[in-house]
């Protein structure tokens, strides 16, 4: 991360397929480099609740898609 001149970064998004890599990278960005805008992808939605407790901004593809579907169903019914 140091080599990516992260000190100057305003936003950091961890979006890899590996949840553990994402959560660790996001926490390094947040706690070590104090980056204000950190986003972390959680692929396995079961872990969402756990990592929400760690004060991380999370996104989950399954949750986002299902919410989208639900809201589109809601809007047409």
């Amino acid at each position, binding site marked *: 991360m140091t080599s990516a001149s992260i000190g100057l970064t305003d936003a950091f998004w961890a979006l890899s397929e*590996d*949840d*553990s*890599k994402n*959560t*660790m*990278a996001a*926490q*390094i960005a947040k*706690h*070590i480099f104090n980056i204000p805008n950190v986003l972390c992808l959680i692929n*396995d939605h*079961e*872990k969402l*609740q*756990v*990592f929400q*407790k*760690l004060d991380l901004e999370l996104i989950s593809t399954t949750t986002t898609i299902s919410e989208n579907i639900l809201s589109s169903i809601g809007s047409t019914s």
Partner: protein
Amino acid sequence: MYIIIIGCGRLGLQLSKALMAVGHEVTAIERDPTRYKAASHTLGTVAIEGDGTSMKTLSLAGANRADLVVALTGSDESNLAVCQIAKYGYNAPRTMALVKSPPHEALFRLLEVDTVINSTHLILTTIEEEVPKWPLIHLLNLKTHSMDIVAMPIPPDASVIGENVNDIDLPPNSFISLVVKNDGPVIPREDTILEVDDEVIVVTVPSEEQILYEKLTGVE
């Protein structure tokens, strides 16, 4: 105690066996099919195959009643995730993680992994102890105060020899807490003089170690 171990490499396997031998209840989780096979051959039903960073596997292992969760995989990322999931998802009272990359150690501590085992640091400490005349031997790291307890043999030509322990001008956060003499250890008193072959045990902070070393070994 009920202990869950994640990662059944050589270390995880040895640890599981040792803990079971002293009467602890152990579950060992391994993701890699080949290593799992080897583990179940040695440990029997204690070994389960699965990803230790998934809640499915941890629930199956009974993480909610674990007294201790130990993450020993080869990946720092997985080890951190295991500890955080165990702590925040299952209220595990105590977590331990192996960390391979030394810079990650501080992060693990910051994120409240209870015990961080830094394999590089451990090996280095062992080497330090074995190398003759290595000046500072790290005996213990007090993680809550980030202080170190170090041992240091005083070289025969050091200028502090013959000086009163209390007169040595040490850095502000370093304290000589014990002087080991040929006839045994003494707690520094008003009249304790450093002699040839003495060894001192010092409580210090990492940033002062270099100055401390120069003060105690310096030849003037």
